[in-house]
């Protein structure tokens, strides 16, 4: 009986073991290694929305500390640091660009710094719409040509921000899906290619299906063309110091193609909730008060009687630029109502954010005309540019604030335009136009800083706490490049030498920023 018992026992235990090895071959696991929470097929419309959700960051990107575009805004003294003044006293500034080229490992959430990689997303959109095996699926989200054209325009827009800040970049060989040991392209070559891309993209739109996922323009081809030409115009003008002939040619082409006209400012409409106006997000969600409107800006606005002071910040008390930390803390305590950016803590989460304003475009045309690059009337362009900017900023004044609204009135505008510091009828005409460009780009730091470097207007000085007397002219390449792409970054960095002999210096000059 005993033997019977253990016979069954052993047989039974063996059966259990066999059963649990689940009647499959020893080396077959089916779909065990497919992550049930992911897909292996990208959706191009969702990639496009993801890229567009970051669009405001290319002008203002404070969130987890200052991004390069906020640093740009500090360097052209749109903003001041209120407590930790390291950037505005001109300590060495270097920055990684990971989140421009590639997504982070844990790409979740809607924070630009923990997610993203818009450039590679755009590359994926282009590939999916090009590859014979995927283009039919991709076309469910709009015609292949339209999707590619939009992706090319956005690529240029994002790359242009980067190259104007750093100089040479991994560009033509970038985004190859490799290890990122990428050679750098000369900035001149990047510019040449960006002009070509914009021209081709504008021409590429076909009459096919409207692109889905376009939270900026709702798939409007005309809007995309205008946006592309407007960027084209600004980039062409950027060559004024280094290659006026090419600059002129590109500016003419851009204007001929059709740029933003009156009332055509481009803004991102935020839904609120999970996607927030970035200023609301900064002051009301991250709850930091590191940045204020610079006293340089408020002084200029108030001394010129410019009503935009009402809407550029929460008050007319600008924060002095470039103080040492103790002086900054003392100022903040003595002036608790210093100007926070735009509406500051009063910003609504679903307020729109300006991506590119019509005023900026008209003023660029005014400058081009003044330089003799176009046959347009610089005075008219100048006048329209300022007027467009006033109209735009007037929209953010509270309807019940009659006093402020009055300052934006037509009669106030006429007084303003007639004042000797504004009027083009005398004095340094080009300087006045360029200064207005600086005022009007606000809060788009990269454009303000680029124009200051290009034109020298307005005159800016280092703050009292500065550890370097000169204002930086670029940002140095980040530590990651020195880790992962060491020889290429060393070659590129060696071109940007500061007066103290330092390579990859904040004081080296990029291609178009010639002395």
């Amino acid at each position, binding site marked *: 009986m005993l033997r019977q018992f253990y016979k069954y026992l052993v047989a039974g235990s063996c059966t259990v073991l066999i059963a649990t090895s689940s009647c499959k071959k020893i080396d077959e696991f089916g779909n065990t290694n497919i992550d049930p929470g992911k897909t292996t097929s990208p959706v191009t419309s969702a990639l496009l929305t993801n890229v567009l959700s970051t669009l405001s960051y290319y002008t203002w990107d404070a969130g987890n500390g200052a991004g390069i575009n906020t640093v740009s805004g500090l360097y052209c003294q749109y903003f001041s640091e209120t407590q930790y003044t390291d950037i505005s006293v001109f300590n060495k500034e270097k920055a990684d660009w990971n989140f421009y080229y590639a997504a982070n490992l844990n790409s979740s959430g809607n924070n630009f710094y923990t997610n993203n990689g818009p450039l590679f997303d755009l590359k994926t959109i282009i590939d999916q719409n090009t590859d014979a095996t995927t283009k039919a699926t991709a076309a469910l989200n709009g015609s292949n040509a339209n999707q590619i054209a939009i992706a090319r325009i956005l690529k240029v827009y994002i790359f242009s921000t980067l190259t104007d800040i750093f100089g040479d970049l991994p560009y033509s060989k970038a985004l190859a899906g490799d290890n990122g040991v*990428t050679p750098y392209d000369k900035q001149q070559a990047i510019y040449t290619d960006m002009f070509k891309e914009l021209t081709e993209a504008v021409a590429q739109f076909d009459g096919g299906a409207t692109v889905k996922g376009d939270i900026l323009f709702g798939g409007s081809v005309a809007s995309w063309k205008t946006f592309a030409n407007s960027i084209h115009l600004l980039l062409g003008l950027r060559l004024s110091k280094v290659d006026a002939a090419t600059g002129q040619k590109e500016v003419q082409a851009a204007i001929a193609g059709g740029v933003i006209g009156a009332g055509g400012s481009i803004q991102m409409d935020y839904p609120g909730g999970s996607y927030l106006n970035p200023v609301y997000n900064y002051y009301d969600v991250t709850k930091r008060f590191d940045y204020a409107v610079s006293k340089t800006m408020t002084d200029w606005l108030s001394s010129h009687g410019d009503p935009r002071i009402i809407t550029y910040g929460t008050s007319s008390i600008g924060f002095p630029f470039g103080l040492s930390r103790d002086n900054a803390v003392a100022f903040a305590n003595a002036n608790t109502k210093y100007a926070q950016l735009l509406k500051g803590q009063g910003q609504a989460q679903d307020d729109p954010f300006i991506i590119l304003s019509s005023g900026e475009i008209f003023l660029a045309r005014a400058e081009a005309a003044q330089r003799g690059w176009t046959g347009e009337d610089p005075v008219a362009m100048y006048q329209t540019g300022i007027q467009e900017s006033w109209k735009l900023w007037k929209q953010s004044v509270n309807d019940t604030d009659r006093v402020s609204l009055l300052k934006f009135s037509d009669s106030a505008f006429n007084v303003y335009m007639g004042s000797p510091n504004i009027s083009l009828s005398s004095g340094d005409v080009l300087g006045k136009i360029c200064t207005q460009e600086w005022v009007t780009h606000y809060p788009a730091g990269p454009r303000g800083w680029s124009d200051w470097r290009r034109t020298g207007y307005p005159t800016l000085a280092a703050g009292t706490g500065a550890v370097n007397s000169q204002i930086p002219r670029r940002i140095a390449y980040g530590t990651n490049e020195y880790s992962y792409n060491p020889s290429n970054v060393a070659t590129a960095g060696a071109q940007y030498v500061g007066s103290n002999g330092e390579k990859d210096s904040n004081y080296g000059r990029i291609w178009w920023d010639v002395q």
Partner: protein
Amino acid sequence: MRKFLSLLAVLSMLCLTVTAQTRIPVKGKVLDELGQPVSFASVRVKGEKQGVSADADGNFTIRIVKGAIIQINAVGYASTEMVADGGDLSFRMKRTGQALSEVVVSTAFGVKKSERTTPYSAQVVKSEALNLIPQTSLSDALAGKVAGVQFRSQSPSKLNATAAARIRGGLMLSGDVSPIYVVDGTIISNDVSKDGTTQPNDGAYDIDPSNVETVTILKGANATALFGSKAINGAIVITTKKGYGGKSAVQLNQGVILDKVTHLMHLQNRYAGGANNYLTTYHYKAGDPDSWKSLDGVGFPDYTDDSSWGPEMLGQTYAPWYAWVPGTQYSGKSAKLVGQPNNVKDFWNTGLTSNTNVNFSKSGQGYSTRLSYSKQWIRGLIPNSSSDRNILTSSTTIDINKVVTAGVDFTYNTQLLSGDYSDGYANQTSGNFGQWNHRDLDMKLMKSLRGLKTPIGTLASWNWFHNPDGYDASQPSSFFTGNYWYNFYAYQDNIENQTRRDRFYGDAYIKVNVLDGLSIKGTVRKDQYNYWLENKVHSLLETSGSQTGQLASYRTEQRNQNDMNYELIATYNHNFFKDLAVSLLAGGNTETYNRKQLGANTNQGLNIADYFDISNSKSQPSVTSSRVNSRTNSVFASGEFEYKRFLSLTGAVRQDWSSTLPASDNKLLYPAAGFSFVPTELVKNLPSWLSFGKLYGSWGRKPLTLDVYATNLPYSLSQYQWNSNLLMSTPGSVPAPGLKGALITSYEAGVDMRFVQNRFGLTVNYYNETSASQPVQISVGSTGGYTAKVINAATVKRQGFEFAATAGIMRTKDFTWNVTATVGWLMKNPVTKIVPGTDRIQPSNWIGSFGTHYASAYQALGKDWGQLIGGGYTRGANNLPEIDPTTGLYITGNANYDWGSIVPKVTGGIQNLFTYKNFVVNASLDYQFGGRFFSLTESWGMYSGDIDYTAANNDRGKSVRDPLTNGGGVHVKGVSSVDGKTPIDTYVDGFTYFHQFYGAQIAEPFVHKLSFVKLREVSLGYNLPVKKWGFSSKIVQSATVSVVARNLWLIYSASRNFDPSEISDVYGENGQLPATRSLGVNLSFTF
């Protein structure tokens, strides 16, 4: 797999029917005089050449003809024999002289083997050495006791954080990989977490040290091949206590330990808080709170800046932070401004750990059982933190009949953790004390005012948002909120974090002795882990803070994971031709792992205050989920052949098929082989002082498989839609084409000797290991479009020596003194290959906060694993730092400065055991030398003027903060940055000098060595003379009372402000919680 298993089943059935014809099976057990099992005794029928070996627990089965005489031989015991009449046999062996009994080495699948035939380093730590003092974590108990293992301990303030064991330096490019912990053959997953983040070595956390009988530490591939792909970096193999000796016993242990913080940072006590070095006089103005009238004309320091660049504290009258809040005895009253040297120390509770264990064991004819229950209760050092843990462990074996044995082992651990004890940069739990603080804060007063509220209902803070002179009656919140910080106690009172963990692991098996020496064992192993956490941030914190970054929130998360193994093993032990002992093992295993996780948290605050539910999220809540599945099938075999006890050869081979590998190539085959030569068994007339000698060598390989889903390129949707538009991002990491598994190769050789009747012993072990073509996720340059890639690329090597020595220094009747010492020497640990075109990479978990500003750890080509790289001084002639001649400040640091490895070169420990009559004293000391870490806390402590250097006197006898014109300032020497050689010798104003390091990105002053020597554990025990107690001795068998201490004395530290044995992160520390010193008592009774 099925084929293989069926084959085994058929084989076992066959055996069953063939045997038991002429002979009958007899079960036996070999015990010593105390009833403890004697391992690996040789069992033979008298007159026959062949026989069997008893197992490590002294059990054997032999088939005999009724009436045969059974003869037992074991090393260190007199031979004994007994007539077998068919019933179970129990042998009691007598010790002969001083000879040492067999050291039992535990290996894969619970298989135990003799030290004599072990061809690799296998240090065994016994219960007595492990439990010198009651410990809550096994790896803390092992610290300093194992050669070649660095234990990176953590502050006990971080409740139940487990020390991370780093065996022989680094091997994986991706960072540290924990060894596996194996309990009675079951691999305990390290992939668990207590608070939503996975920490290294967490597997050890669920092992109750009081249930551990022995721990065997196995390191290289030669020793761990049979464990499979989880044993990447060694295995810590645990055998739990069992019932034995035909006795019943009850043991009761109660320990109580008190923890106090120690080794705190050296902070200054000369200057008060704030950014201004003066008091501002307050002038009452209309609209200010009435209670402020009395402060008119009184000076106040700058409250808003959380630094200590304030006025010198000379006992002058001033208005403290709490004077501005009406309704207390301090309202509107000034105080004397004096330093508070003990304010940091005063913050911490005295921690209390109570450890209770009661266990019952009984064994008898055909069964053995043990049941243990432990309760650990901890009151944390951080206010409001606690841990309540209950562990139930049981182990039972039953002999169902003469050939069938069944058993169950399990541990169930349930724990509730409460409080916020996170560390990291600027943590509100108080790790900030060295970074951002006011040195004039009276902590006892802070505690008494923990609930203090302002007239607008917010919590009063020492760090007001604005100073009182800027008070605006129309907006009182611009004063009555905390700028960056809260009252430290109030913060703790308004945070509720709870984690409930439940862990079950164990095995059930049935073993059939099919033939003499042949048995088949089927085992089911399970490791189940569930946790649930809930974090609540009260709305009061949101309304009371301005830049504190705290929003009211609710977070919850659940995780359920399960690891099942089905294992079938046949073992065969037989002595052929009298002198050839053969031991064979073959088997198969199938593993299924799955893990499901679901978490949710509110976003942007709560709509209704203090209503803690996901539905109350201000904006769309975050919901995260993950599902992880994997399966592995394995077959394996091993053999051991020993000739005349002096020469043995061993070999093992295992093949895995894993779901995580590419389907086209999803198997990995890996072998191991070794020899052991024991001359003391061969040569009879060796000098009498040599008691034992062994030479051994071995080689082996073990697999590196891929992470789950590593071969996929997965696109995922953002959970948030933009007006019903989906968002998707290209993944950040891409698998390389042709990604596959790889193998680690290890060589090892050594000698093991004992002298003078085993009184002295020395083991020397050399190892050389290579891990090539590692499949690792590495960071890559983002310009390629990915930030990470999984590739087969890296090669890491390591070689070194391990020494272990024992000495019985004194052996008199009343006094004995035994010493055990270990040394691990990591000779080389180079990274010889990384990604082409790149000379360094950074594992993602090695990036520190402000990492690129200061220093963090990298893998650098051609250098040792884990280099600390960051901002060194830019140096000119004579290696002197370059200084800007106009400002006297250092120029921007050299971001690529390399301080060397983060791994200490030499680690080890010394344990002393003294007995005098009934007293027992244990002292365990450990040390390490070399290795570097970076202190972020020191860097901010300098910036904020909290650290003592910022308030010292210079070589002119004046404070470094005094004006230069009065002889103050910091003396600076270097060379001019303009030409790199002109000497500079000047003074720089202290405020400017100490602020420069962040901006100039210089980490150098904050990098220190990890070297230390520490008296870690001391216990003084007294064995109560129960035998003399008459009546009570019938109840109490033994009783011990001991006084215990932990971290008693940091004898030497290369770091002034931190205990190098407790550095929180791999590259350094980020505002970590302080070291502690513990004292306690322990009572132990056996009934």
